[in-house]
């Protein structure tokens, strides 16, 4: 009985330890290659690489790889995926024995020796999961920074987006046949069959107006595009781990005052569009953006005045927390750039709209509760009754989950 009890306790401790470790470990399988974390509204994708060199001290190549990665993928760059921010980190080491990393061989060849850098997934790209499968790269030590950025794109799960000019129509690429962006893989480009021969030729493919060149189609001039980020996130993060929320916050107030020989009526109306990203702990983090209007009319002996001011765009950082069928406000932080002057002028009299967050007079005093597909909160409060004074403050908040990946157009 005693032994059983000790075993049970030991088992419980092991379980607790395991649960604690699981909570601290980044998402992804044990020995995972790339990893991801979701913290607040930020997805962090970490590329884990074991770098080897065919000659010399690998540490300088570790630094070089870090530098290139920072310039193109990492550093301070923040990408977007749906309602989430996306940042990339490179965890690269030359130390052997660390399993669960992609392998990159930096290959030194003598001057004048032709070397074409490659990445191999060991399987079709469609089956490649950067969090579970090994990618193996052989990168020429003299490769340009842009080529290395392109190869990192492969490690992250992006394919090449070019085709070749089959000038002799033999159905294979010959030595002197050039590559060019493939509109079927890179929709930023379009093909116009100017000679009407039904065959896509290099000179017939051009960038669509307003579009940007793709790093995976043209390494010398291309850029990392939004659809690259979308594809990478979808390769790394299971869709069920992501949830975006959209909604609105509407608020306003009206008031009417009537005094001897003078009267005043004022209204304020505001509407914010809300976009929030949910993390694993149920925190909804994002922004509320919109506009606010105040207007009023007043009269007094010898004067009739009216004034109106429109403010916007206003932006607020918003944090909420979901717990079951309730969502509670955690914090709201006005953007420094809001710069709202909360007053209008009537007959030379400044009318001040007081508030700690200029432009947002919304009151969210309680939780949003689930009502069918949406989470809803409504507040209405008449002004205290007093002679000649009437008015009301009101706030309506509506939020609903939209999934993720369905609204990339929200991205910058």
């Amino acid at each position, binding site marked *: 009985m005693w032994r059983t009890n000790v075993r049970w306790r030991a088992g419980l401790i092991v379980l607790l330890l395991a649960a604690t470790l699981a909570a601290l470990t980044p998402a992804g399988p044990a020995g995972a290659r790339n990893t991801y974390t979701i913290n607040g509204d930020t997805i962090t994708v970490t590329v884990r690489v074991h770098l080897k060199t065919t000659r010399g001290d690998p540490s300088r190549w570790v630094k070089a790889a870090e530098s290139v990665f920072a310039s193109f993928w990492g550093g301070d760059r923040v990408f977007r995926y749906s309602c989430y921010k996306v940042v990339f980190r490179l965890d690269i080491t030359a130390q052997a024995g660390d399993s669960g990393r992609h392998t990159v061989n930096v290959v030194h060849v003598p001057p004048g020796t032709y070397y074409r850098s490659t990445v191999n997934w060991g399987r079709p790209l469609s089956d490649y999961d950067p969090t579970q499968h090994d990618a193996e790269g052989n990168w020429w030590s003299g490769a340009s920074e842009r080529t*290395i950025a392109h190869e990192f794109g492969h490690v992250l799960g992006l394919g090449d987006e070019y085709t070749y000019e089959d000038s002799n129509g033999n159905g294979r690429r010959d030595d002197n046949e050039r590559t060019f962006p493939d509109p079927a893989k890179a929709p930023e480009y379009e093909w116009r069959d100017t000679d009407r021969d039904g065959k896509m030729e290099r000179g017939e493919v051009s960038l669509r107006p307003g579009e940007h060149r793709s790093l995976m189609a043209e390494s010398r001039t291309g850029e990392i595009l939004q659809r690259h980020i979308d594809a990478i996130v979808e390769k790394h993060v299971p869709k069920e781990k992501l949830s975006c929320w959209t909604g609105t916050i509407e608020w306003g107030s009206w008031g009417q005052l009537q005094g001897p020989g003078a009267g005043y009526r004022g209204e304020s109306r505001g509407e914010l569009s809300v976009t929030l990203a949910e993390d694993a702990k149920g925190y909804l983090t994002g922004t509320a953006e919109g506009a606010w209007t105040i207007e009023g009319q007043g009269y007094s002996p010898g004067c009739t005045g009216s004034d109106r001011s429109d403010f916007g765009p206003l932006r607020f950082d918003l944090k909420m927390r979901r717990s079951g069928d309730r969502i509670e406000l955690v914090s709201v932080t006005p953007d420094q750039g809001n710069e709202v002057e909360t007053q209008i002028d009537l007959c030379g009299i400044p009318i001040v709209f*007081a508030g700690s967050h200029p432009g947002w007079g919304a009151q969210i005093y309680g939780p949003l509760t689930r009502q069918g597909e949406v989470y809803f909160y409504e507040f209405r409060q008449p002004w205290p009754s007093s002679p000649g004074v009437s008015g009301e403050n009101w706030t309506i908040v509506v939020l609903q989950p939209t999934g993720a990946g369905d609204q990339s157009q929200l991205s910058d």
Partner: protein
Amino acid sequence: MTRGLLPGMLLALLALTGSACAGRSLSGTPVVAPQPGATPAPAASPTATPDAQVVARVRAAVEGFDPIEEATFHELNMLALERADMAATLAPYLEEPDSGRRFAAIYLLALVADTPEEIEALKVALDDPVFSYRVVAAGSLAGLGVVEALPVLVEAVGSDALLPYSEFNEPVDALAREALEAYTGQTFATAEEWRAWWERVKDTVHWDGTRYVAD
């Protein structure tokens, strides 16, 4: 958060009732450039006779080479890391009518060549019917003291031919200049200057163990 309009409006009421109206109303820069003049350093470790498995892989890689499939290029790169003596295995492919197989053999041999047998095998490619293949062979052989490689490289300077099957249409010109500058110590701006230099030195130039010198 504000509590709304009420406080301001009460102030307004007081003001309205207590005053008169005033009426105002958003590289190509290399990571680390190859060092011109650097000593050719083909062999990181002594080449070894390949085992049967490597030989089988080499044959499969060459025979299955498809330039549009990066994985087949990758396999050639992986085989190059084996540092095994591949002359006997690759030499027959240099006579192949299939240009893809020929290229795969030249590419791999150019990467691994460091034995007399491999060098002799690769020299056959200096007469390949495809100019850019000849340049690939010459670029490697130039660093191994093969004088016959130089005129091929000189011819490539200024050429708009492409390195075979390059990913983004890299010209042979850059590779040829890199090799010539590294192994001759000469630097010329134009193709004509390189050709004039070759005409001056072609009868006397020789490899001194580290670079080409003319008497």
